[in-house]
């Protein structure tokens, strides 16, 4: 009993322990090999800089966070709608899917300058970049969830006289839910990448901009502080997606708690 409990506690503590050990090794390596701060700052130094500059960090974090979340939200709405259309209708599928694949293959860094010509400098390019980069996995997953309805399930519904709309709402959408939530975990991380790329290429606010300008001033410690800030936000949003997923699609795990 107690050993099981302590094992569980250890399991929860593991990520923290591993992080701590990594930081320790990093710190020791920096000291041992006399690495200069401009090349690779020590974690303790990054920590200190974070505390010193927490106000600007927090402000720019929130900036990046809200642009990301808005872009992500738009991606969910558009991704679900297009995913449902593609998954439900072979006609829409054959028309849209090749285009989507072509679009997804375009490096998103390339579109930021265009967005800036259209929309100017500001939050809009970040929102849109977050949107375009995170929407594809959502579309693909939702469409897959719909397209893989068991034929028998469809036959049962059709023989009851269900309309296509009823088949979609009673079978298709619930079935696509776990696929949707699985894609959200990937998409939220991508959305952060999108908004930070936009801020880096041409923003005047946000963590990406902060990192770029700090890098230009040879303030490597601040750049790293920005990196950590993004990582932390990413992990938090990911955890949020997982929590929502577990609440809504418990059946997909057959009651097992998968971490």
């Amino acid at each position: 009993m107690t050993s099981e409990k302590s094992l569980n506690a250890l399991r929860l503590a593991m990520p923290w322990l591993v992080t701590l050990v990594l930081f320790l090794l990093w710190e020791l390596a920096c000291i041992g090999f006399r690495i200069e701060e401009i090349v690779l700052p020590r974690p303790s130094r990054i920590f200190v800089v974070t505390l010193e500059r927490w106000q600007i960090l927090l402000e720019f974090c929130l900036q990046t966070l809200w642009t990301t979340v808005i872009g992500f939200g738009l991606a969910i709405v558009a991704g679900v709608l297009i995913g449902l259309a593609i998954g439900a209708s072979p006609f829409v599928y054959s028309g849209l899917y090749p285009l989507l694949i072509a679009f997804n293959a375009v490096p998103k860094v390339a579109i930021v300058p265009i967005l800036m010509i259209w929309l100017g400098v500001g939050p809009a390019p970040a929102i849109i970049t977050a949107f375009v980069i995170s929407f594809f996995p959502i579309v693909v997953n939702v469409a897959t969830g719909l397209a893989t309805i068991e034929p028998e399930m469809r036959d049962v519904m059709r023989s009851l006289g269900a309309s296509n709309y009823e088949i979609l709402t009673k079978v298709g959408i619930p079935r696509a839910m776990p696929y949707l939530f699985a894609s959200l975990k990937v998409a939220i991380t991508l959305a952060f990448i999108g908004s930070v790329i936009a801020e880096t290429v041409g923003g005047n606010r946000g963590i990406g901009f902060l990192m770029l300008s700090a890098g230009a001033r040879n303030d490597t410690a601040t750049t790293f502080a920005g990196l950590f800030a993004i990582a932390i936000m990413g992990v938090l949003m990911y955890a949020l997606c997982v929590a929502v997923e577990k609440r809504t699609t418990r059946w997909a795990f057959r009651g097992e708690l998968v971490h």
Partner: protein
Amino acid sequence: MTPEMAAPLVELSGASLVYGREGEKTLALADATLSIGKGEFIAVVGPSGCGKSTLMKLVTGLLPATSGSVKVHGEVVRKPIKGVGMAFQNATLMPWRTTRDNILLPLEVVEPHKRRFRANRAEYVAKVEALLASVGLGGFGDKFPWQLSGGMQQRSNLCRALIHEPEILMLDEPFGALDAFTREELWSVLQNLWLERRFTTVLVTHDLREAVYLADTVYVMSRRPGRIILKRPIELPRPRTLEDTFKPGFVDIVHELRDCIHKEHA
């Protein structure tokens, strides 16, 4: 005699079905002619791949016949006929619904229940509970399908096929995946429900004892392309018991069907 008794409920005349279009064509069912009276229980047996499932899909209108005609209530079937109850070999229950909600599904879809569903939910839930109890699943309504054993899932599947009191029940090897004891128990469950309600039933099965135990008429199909090669009325008295299945009269019929299928394989 009422016209209903004179005209059979389901009538197939010369119905055949070809899968696939240009190039790879498979003739799955050839020239099937049979009629099913209202309230009749028929069983279809035959070698694997001979077109039994195809025959079921024709009768329910899930697939249109390539040639010949399928009539239900004297009308040619062109699209899925409404309100049929169906159960397959795998239970196809929805894992996101509890057993109770799974069984409520047909009531949410089939008229006139659909219209009354919201207002009369409690009444329908009571109906589901009663049906669950009659198949020995009383108290399991709150469980999710994946919390049930295979046999229990198959019982729920049967309940879902029956809850809306369909005129026609289609069973495609519903007990195929179960152990012998559960299977035999479900035979008697099904027989009791049928004796009570007399729904017209088409049962596809590989088990000859199951066919003879349950059916009024057994149809034997040939290898692909499937043709009906024998129509065997079973005139044993009902209710039939498991004991009966070991009695000479019963065993003789099973042997007769076996021989027929063996000749087909030779």
